């Protein structure tokens, strides 16, 4: 049995994953992937996994966007 909240979040996560993949510009993709990370974190909360929620929040909202942006900044600088 699933609650309405879980169904809604699962649909949002599926849509979010699709949006991340279809965002072809890497800089815009950084924004969409961090929003996707937040959606996952909320879904894990609804799956009764607060520990994984914290982990996904710190990684998805902080570490990954930072690493991606720094890489893109570096690549852009090499192009100049």
């Amino acid at each position, binding site marked *: 049995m*699933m609650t309405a909240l879980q169904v809604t979040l699962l649909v949002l996560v599926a849509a979010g994953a699709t949006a*991340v*993949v279809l965002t072809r510009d*890497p800089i815009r*993709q950084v924004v969409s992937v961090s929003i996707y990370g937040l959606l996952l974190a909320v879904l*894990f909360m609804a799956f009764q*996994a607060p520990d*994984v929620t914290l982990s996904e929040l710190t990684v998805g909202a902080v*570490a990954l966007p930072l690493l*991606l942006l720094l890489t893109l900044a570096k690549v852009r600088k090499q192009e100049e």
Partner: protein
Amino acid sequence: MSIFPFVVVAWVCAVGLYGIITSRHLVHQIVCLIVVQSSTYILLLGVGYKTGAVAPYFYDIPLNTPAVDPVVQALALTDVVVEAAVTALLLAFAVQAHKRFGTLDPEELRQFQG
């Protein structure tokens, strides 16, 4: 209807793989790999979920309360952090590739094979 979460897992995994094979930018490809990996977390937590159960923390609830499986949660938890480290390593390789070949397009990089 009870298989819906696992269908979402398959969708997330497939859409990520589709992104990887059609990608024209290494950083985009790495982000698609993150999406593929995220499907495993949903799968793990979905397998361990029990209807009506609480999170496995017995700080202020009695010991015999039904709780969801903590083992899969422990696996997913460490995976999330390891994923970030692996992504960092891949990004470093992408920077290296761009430095040496001046492009991040996998199709163009192919011609430097050898």
